[in-house]
Structure formats: structure tokens, C-alpha cells
């Protein structure tokens, strides 16, 4: 016997598998309507390639794969496409998703299909493509496209190919009955997988609670080199990571793929589907589904077409709706409740569980966590669920990640054993979703931050370049001035005075003209430059037939005008310079002198006046001011100015009146004198 390894934790819930294995797999037949969701797998939904009203044959592709992580859909029977619309699907959220609705014609007529029993002569990639075209996705529950799993990175050596026949969830027997009834197909499928992957060993792992299945497989594997390995029943040994540890003793690195430890896993159901696809050329259009629970009278396994409404299957098994409060797709540990009994079964529907309230009671309200640690003992990933729960309640996301929340496989063992009935898994799911959302938000924010910073950097750089140019110019100018000073060999102070004088002089006279000339010349040059650039842009826009042509054209015209004006100004100035070099007006530097002289003369005149004359003059001035102020006041009033202004004016008038009377007195005195 082969050595098997244990894994940490795990639980032993009541198996409840015996109910549904009493009869062989029954053909469910063709329901009146089939609803085929476009997304039944992990990845991109398939794209519709049929039209409403189109007649299709059984096995005909009705939706094609969209990209690598996608698989096509096929018509489960012959009939007419009656609708392509959103229907409620089997999903925990109960949401509506695009579906193809097929009304069967009852003839169940196959499309021409040819198998490749000679697959060993085929290219492996072509074989993987064939599996992909057959629409096969992991049938154990997750729905991971099988072709993706088989496309192992080149150079990866696969030691072990594992066919997962564990079926550790209570109630489900879909794989068990396949092993009992179609062991040869499983082995053929395993051989195909072995040919594609080329492992050193091929193992079929089965829990020891399926002795009939194991016996059938052992008989079928005779001489094939495929080994059937049995190991003690414990939930969740069927988890891919757990099964790999049981059979090889290796652990898949956190966040990694089984191929990293040289293992590829395939489910029993998928293996049979691969056999059907390769050897008989039949795409995946039906599957084995267990219908069980105390609310159905005859629990059993059905070969059901994909798209069969759950109600149809349940009624075939003697469904008693009055006894059933929740309908579960999958098992009692990891399955989810179905929103409505009319949703269709899909490629991942391994079980429909219709329990009674006694069988799976509605959980009582949760009590406080007493940190008993039973969850930690049960956790197959060796996590500390009670700590995770604590952090999840407090939304301490960093600590959650530190405690490896993302290694949780959501098997439900912790919730199962929790004496306080805490829905632990739900807390982890919610926290995971929240953290993922936060990561996405963070990535977005990070991207825009980087964009913003890059722009800021660009602007700063441009600014710095300008600044550098400015500084360089300044330096050059200083250097010129310095070298000029140094050449003359004068005393620096004298030189500075001279420079200052020169500068002052430059504001007028010859210096001024020089700079004016320069400015005009510069204006012409820069206008020329602008015109050149504008013209170039216009050319470019024209060549690209851009909408901007018109706008650019006006721009060019304007620039041209400006250039012309600048040139005119320059010529005019040059002419003026040439004509009247001597006819220059008197330098305005003398204006100040004149003003001073004027002021002096005035003072002298005043001084020469007699006191009476002076007083009279003063009085006249004051009267003039009064008149002015009164006029302003009148205007302000008529304008309706602010009161403050009017008040101020009034007080001025009063003051001036006072001053006038004082001046009159003075005048009187002067005249008397």
C-alpha cells in the first residue's frame, strides 16, 4: 500500500451518502425548456453565436469561448433557440445573467461528431484545444477551465497527475456513482490526461468510505499503471491542496499553483467529460447530479442535461416543497442556497440538496466567541480562525492579512465546530471581498498619484530649465560687465559710479535709443520665430486633416500682421535715426532744473508781495477751493453717494468756510496796518 500523509485539522460530519446510491444513475430526459447560462465557469463568459429562432442540433456550439480563460457552450439537445436574455442563475447572489434559452424539438438529434480514439497520434496542444472546444470546466464545483489547468507552463516537470475522486462533502455521490458505473471511462480519461501531461505517476485518490467505487476503479486500472489510492475519510480531503498533501506530502505554496510542486489535479467528472470529448467527439452537454436530502422522496443521481431547470430534476426525485426551506446547490459544507427553484443546473452542479428543517436546522443566533480554539483545531489550513474572526469584526485588515486570511479555503470546518454558532466563513468572505476592493481602489489611487507626480515633475523640470537659462543669462551679463570693468583697469568704485552714470544716461539720450533699437529688432526676430512655428504647426495640421486647421490659419495670419507691424516700427525708427541725428530735442534732464527755477521765482515773487496782497491771494485761493468742494458735494448728493462721503465733504466745506473767515480777518488786519 502506498504511504499517504495527513493534513492538519479536518472534521467528520455525518456523511449522508447512502441515501442517493441505492439506484443506478437515471437519465433525467429532456425538459420542456433548457436555459444555458453563458458563464458557468471561472473566467470570461462565452459569446453567443446563434440567433433567436435558429434551429440547432445536439452538441452544436451555441456560444464560443472568449479568450484564454473561457470555454464554449453547446446545445444540450436539438431544438430552437427561443430566447437570448437575462435569467436568474444559480449563484449565491441570485443575480440575473445572460442565458440562451433552447426549446427542445424532442428529436434529440446529434450534430455530426467524430472522436479521436487515436489521440496518441495527436499533438498535445491540439488535444488541449479539443478539450477546450468541448466546453469542459472543472466539474467538482469551482468550474476552472480544464484546458487552462492542462496548459502547464513549458519546462515545468509534472511528477504526479491526480484524479480527484475524494468527494469529501457529505451527501454528494455524483463522483461515487461514476466510479461504480463508469470506471473504464474514468481510466480512459486518465490515460488521455496522462498522455497530455506526461507525469511520472498517475494516482486516483478516493476516500475509504467508497469501497464499491474503489473496487470498480481497481478492476479497471489493472495493468494501466494508474494507481488507486485510498485514504481515511475526513472533510475536507477533497480540497485540491489537501488532497495533494495527502497523496504527496507536499504543500502548494501560498498563492501558487499545484504545478509548482509538480502536481496537476483533475476531478472525476471532468475526466469522464474529457474522455467523451476526445474519444467520442462529444462536447460537455450533460453531467451527473445528485438530488438528495430528506425533502425528496427518492434521492438519486441523474444524468441531466446542462440547462435543465432544478424544479424538473427535483420533481423527478419526488420533491416535497412543503418540507424544504432551503435548496442548496453543492454540499452542506460549501454549497450555496439557490434563490429560486427554477434556475438551471450548470456544469458545476454536482448536487442539489433539499434538506428538511430537522436535517439541517436554521442556525440559532450566534453567541460570543469564547476562544475555545475548536476552530483552530479543525482548520485544514492551520489558520487561527478565532483570531481572524476578532480582526474581521474590528476590520483590522492588516492583521487579517498578517494572519493569512487569504489562505482560507472557505471549507466551513471552523463554522461547523464553533460552539457559539458564529458564521465564521461569512466573516472571512466579507473581509476578503473588502480587502480585494480596497486593493483595487488603492491600485487606482496609486496609478493616479503616479500620473500626477509625473506631471508635477515635468512642470518642475520645465521651470527649472527656464530658471537655469535665466541664471545663465544673468551670469553672462555680469561677466561681460565685469570683464569690461577689469579691462579699463580703473578703481572699482569709480567704475561703479561710472556704470551707474552710464545707466542713468542710457535711460535718456543715445543709450536709450540703442536699447529701443534693440527692443524693436528683438520684436521683429521673435515675431518671425512665432510665425515660423505657427506655419509649421499649420502644415502639420493640414497634412493630418486636423480640425484645428482653421484656428491655426487665423493664428498664422495674426502673427504675420504682428511681424509686419514690428518691421514697420523698426524701419520707422531707423529712418528717424538716420534723418535727424542733430535735430534732437533738448534732453529732458533739464526739466527739473527749470522746475526748480520756477519754484524759486515764485517764492521770490511771494516774498516781494506786501502782507495785504499775500492775504488777499490766500483768501482767493481758499475761496476757489471752497467753490470746488461745494461743487463736488452737490454732485455727490445728486449721485446719491454714500453718506460717509457726503459727510466728509460737508465737514470740508465747513472747515474751508472757517478758514475763509479767518483769512478775511487777516486781510482786514493787513489792510488796517
Amino acid at each position, binding site marked *: 500500500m502506498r504511504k499517504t500523509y495527513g493534513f492538519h485539522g479536518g472534521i467528520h460530519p455525518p456523511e449522508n451518502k447512502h441515501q442517493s446510491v441505492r439506484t443506478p444513475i437515471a437519465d433525467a430526459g429532456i425538459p420542456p425548456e433548457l436555459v444555458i447560462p453563458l458563464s458557468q465557469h471561472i473566467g470570461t463568459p462565452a459569446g453567443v453565436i446563434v440567433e433567436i429562432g435558429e434551429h440547432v442540433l445536439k452538441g452544436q456550439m451555441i456560444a464560443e469561448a472568449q479568450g484564454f480563460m473561457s470555454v464554449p457552450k453547446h446545445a444540450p439537445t436539438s431544438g430552437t433557440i427561443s430566447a437570448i436574455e437575462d435569467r436568474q442563475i444559480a449563484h449565491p447572489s441570485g443575480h440575473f445573467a445572460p442565458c440562451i434559452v433552447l426549446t427542445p424539438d424532442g428529436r434529440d438529434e446529434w450534430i455530426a461528431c467524430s472522436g479521436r480514439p487515436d489521440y496518441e497520434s495527436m499533438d498535445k496542444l491540439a488535444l488541449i484545444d479539443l478539450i477546450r472546444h468541448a466546453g469542459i470546466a472543472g466539474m467538482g464545483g469551482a468550474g476552472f477551465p480544464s484546458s487552462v489547468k492542462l496548459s502547464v507552463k513549458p519546462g515545468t516537470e509534472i511528477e504526479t497527475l491526480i484524479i480527484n475522486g475524494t468527494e469529501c462533502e457529505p451527501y454528494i455521490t455524483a463522483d461515487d456513482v461514476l466510479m461504480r458505473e463508469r470506471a473504464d471511462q474514468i481510466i480512459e480519461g486518465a490515460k488521455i490526461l496522462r498522455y497530455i501531461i506526461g507525469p511520472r505517476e498517475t494516482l486516483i485518490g478516493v476516500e475509504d468510505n467508497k469501497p464499491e467505487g474503489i473496487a470498480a476503479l481497481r478492476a479497471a486500472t489493472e495493468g494501466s499503471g494508474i494507481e488507486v489510492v485510498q485514504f481515511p475519510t475526513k472533510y475536507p480531503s477533497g480540497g485540491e491542496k489537501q488532497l495533494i498533501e495527502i497523496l504527496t506530502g507536499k504543500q502548494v*505554496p501560498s498563492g501558487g499553483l499545484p504545478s509548482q510542486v509538480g502536481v496537476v489535479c483533475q476531478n472525476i467528472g471532468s475526466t469522464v467529460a474529457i474522455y467523451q470529448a476526445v474519444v467520442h467527439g462529444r462536447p460537455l452537454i450533460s453531467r451527473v447530479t445528485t438530488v438528495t436530502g430528506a425533502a425528496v422522496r427518492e434521492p438519486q443521481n441523474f444524468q441531466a442535461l446542462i440547462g435543465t431547470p432544478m424544479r424538473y430534476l427535483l420533481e423527478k426525485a419526488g420533491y416535497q416543497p412543503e418540507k424544504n426551506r432551503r435548496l442548496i446547490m453543492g454540499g452542506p459544507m460549501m454549497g450555496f442556497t*439557490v434563490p429560486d427553484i427554477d434556475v438551471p443546473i450548470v456544469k458545476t452542479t454536482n448536487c442539489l440538496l433539499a434538506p428538511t428543517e430537522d436535517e439541517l*436546522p436554521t442556525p440559532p443566533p450566534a453567541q*460570543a466567541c469564547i476562544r475555545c480554539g475548536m476552530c483552530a483545531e479543525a482548520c485544514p489550513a492551520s489558520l487561527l480562525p478565532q483570531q481572524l474572526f476578532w480582526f474581521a469584526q474590528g476590520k483590522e485588515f492588516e492583521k487579517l492579512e498578517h494572519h493569512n486570511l487569504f489562505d482560507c479555503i472557505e471549507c*466551513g*470546518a471552523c463554522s461547523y465546530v464553533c460552539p457559539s454558532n458564529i458564521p465564521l466563513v461569512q466573516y472571512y468572505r466579507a473581509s476578503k471581498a473588502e480587502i480585494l476592493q480596497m486593493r483595487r481602489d488603492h491600485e487606482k489611487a496609486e496609478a493616479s498619484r503616479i500620473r500626477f507626480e509625473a506631471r508635477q515633475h515635468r512642470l518642475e523640470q520645465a521651470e527649472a530649465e527656464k530658471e537655469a537659462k535665466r541664471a545663465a543669462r544673468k551670469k553672462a551679463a555680469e561677466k561681460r560687465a565685469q570683464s569690461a570693468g577689469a579691462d579699463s583697469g580703473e578703481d572699482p568704485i569709480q567704475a561703479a559710479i561710472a556704470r551707474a552714470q552710464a545707466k542713468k544716461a542710457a535711460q535718456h539720450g543715445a543709450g536709450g535709443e540703442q536699447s529701443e533699437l534693440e527692443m524693436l529688432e528683438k520684436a521683429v526676430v521673435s515675431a518671425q520665430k512665432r510665425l515660423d512655428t505657427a506655419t509649421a504647426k499649420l502644415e502639420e495640421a493640414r497634412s493630418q486633416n486636423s480640425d484645428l486647421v482653421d484656428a491655426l490659419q487665423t493664428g498664422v495670419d495674426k502673427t504675420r500682421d504682428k511681424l509686419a507691424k514690428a518691421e514697420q516700427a523698426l524701419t520707422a525708427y531707423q529712418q528717424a535715426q538716420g534723418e535727424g541725428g542733430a535735430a534732437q530735442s533738448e534732453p529732458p534732464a533739464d526739466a527739473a532744473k527749470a522746475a526748480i527755477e520756477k519754484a524759486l521765482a515764485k517764492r521770490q515773487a511771494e516774498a516781494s508781495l506786501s502782507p495785504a496782497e499775500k492775504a488777499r491771494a490766500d483768501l482767493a485761493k481758499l475761496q476757489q477751493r471752497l467753490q470746488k468742494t461745494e461743487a463736488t458735494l452737490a454732485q455727490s448728493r445728486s449721485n446719491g453717494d454714500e453718506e460717509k462721503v457726503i459727510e466728509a465733504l460737508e465737514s470740508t466745506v465747513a472747515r474751508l468756510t472757517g478758514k475763509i473767515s479767518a483769512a478775511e480777518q487777516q486781510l482786514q488786519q493787513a489792510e488796517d496796518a
Partner: protein
Amino acid sequence: MALIRLTSPHAHGPMSTQRVMQNVLLATVPGIIVLTHFFGYGTLVNLLWGSLVALACEALALKLRRRPLGFYLKDCSALVTAFLLCIALPPYSPWWLIAIGIASAILLAKQLYGGLGYNPFNPAMAGYVILLISFPVQMTSWAPPLGQGEMPSLLQALQACFTPGQYDGVTMATPLDVLKQNNSLLIEDLWQQNPQFGLFAGVGWEWANLAFLAGGAWLLYQRIFTWHAPVAMLVSLSLLAALFYDGGSSASGGSPLFHLFSGATMFGAFFIVTDPVTSAVSLRGRLIYGALIGALVYVIRVRGNYPDAVAFAVLIMNFAAPFIDYYTQPRTYGHSKRGEK
């Protein structure tokens, strides 16, 4: 009927918090019987009165906190606290001592922190320590065991509790007291001169400890807790006792067997150290937690001021539990040993 929507898992195991608590209560029964046999009805009266006070305190706190009474009272956690504290109290304790202890345990140590599951300290031990510090005389007078003087009747036991002034009970030093105060006699002589000593520990005490060991073993079998913390505590206590036994000299700390079956050793190991709320959670963490409690018990018994030390040792380690947890995270599946990916 419309289908209800629930999240997985849909199945639930048979264990419930109520059942955990009831199992713990049940497991104390052998110990209570032995204590009653050797020390009289005092323990039973303690339990009766203590349980009433505990339920009343719990109900009061729940009412003040506006929580549903029935839902929380039926988890039996208040009764467990009452049992653990009342077993630890000296038999024939006055009613007010018990009431103060229980009220401190339930109201201060438990409900003020948010009730069951949120208390950082073991409520029973917190109550015990509050009493020990506040009323050292009452807390250190233990009744003489069977065969040492007259055993009080049930009526006397009730009197001792409810009319403490009118009851004049006999008390006697416990074997741990005697050993502590000894500084001249060889262990062998001590054993002969004091009637408290029995076969390998104290009269009555050795049987009580065995009974609590049996109750603990049953809980272990019921998978209420794991073996790690109790075994670690007993091993570290024995190791230290063996190391400092000193051949039974007058400076000896007592033999390992004596320490294992004296005072609250077994009761502490299986009923106090295993309190899930206040202990470390990982298995490795529980080993460390238990071992350190064992060491502290020995150090305080032999070097400290108090003859027994389980309450202090447990409270001190309650402080350390989160710290221990932080450093003893188990290696998650698919991670390397250092906790890295």
C-alpha cells in the same frame, strides 16, 4: 414557501457553548464530593449561595446592558464562574465574602469588559484575588480535614455562611501553610509532626486533587479543551519541585508529588488554566502559557508571601496571553516556517 438564503456551511456540529459550560460544571462534581467529604458541607453552601448571587449579578448586568436575559443566562457561563470561585473559597465562608467575590468576578472582571468572551482576566480568579487581598484573614482560614476535630453539621454550615457572627468554627493551617512556615524541620519530621499531612500530600487535599484530575481527564476526553496547557503546567511545576526538592531538607520546597496534589494544583490545571477566553489560543502558545503558570505557581508558593499561587499565576499569565499568541502563530498551509510565503 419561499426558499431562504443562508451562507455555507449549512451543517453544524453538535457542540454548543452551553454544552461546553455544562460539561465543565459536571466535571467539577467529583472534586466537590471529595471536598464535602473531607471538609464538610461548607463547600456546598458556598456553591449554593454563590450560584444564586452569580445569576443575580449576571441578570442585573444584562438588564443594564439591555441584553436578552434568557439567551445569555442559558449559556451557563455565570454558573461556571460561581462554581470555580466557590470551590476555591474556604468552606464556611461568610455570605458577604462570597457575595463580594462573585460580584467582583461577574460585574467587574466579566461584564464590565463586555461579558462572556471579552474578559481579559479569568473572572473567578480575579474575584478570588480581590478577596484574598481585601480579606486575608477570612481567605486563609481553611477548615480542618476529616478526622481532625468535629465536623460541622449542615445547619452549622448554613449558620457559618449566613450568620457568621454566631458561628465559631475551627480552622487549621493547610499543608501548604505548614510547609511555607517551616524553616527548621526536615520534610520527614514535618510530615510526622503535623496531622494535616496524608499519604503523599495533605489529608483530603490529595483526594480532592485526584478528583479534579479525574474531572479534567473526562473533559479532555470530551474534547472540551486540549491537553497542552494543563500538562505543560503540571510538568513545569513538577520539574521545578524536583529541582529544588533538596533531598527533603528543612530548606526544601516540597516534593513534586506534594506540589502536584496540594492546594489548587489539579483544579487550577484543568479548570482554570484551560479557561479558553483568557488563555493563549495556539497549541504552542498553550504549552508556553501552561508552563509559565506552573513555574509561577512554584515560585510564589515557595518564595512568595502566599501559600498557594494558582490565582496570581493565572492572572499574571492572562496578561501575557495575547503576547504569546502573537509569537506562536501556527505555520499556515503553504507557508514556510517563518510565516513568510
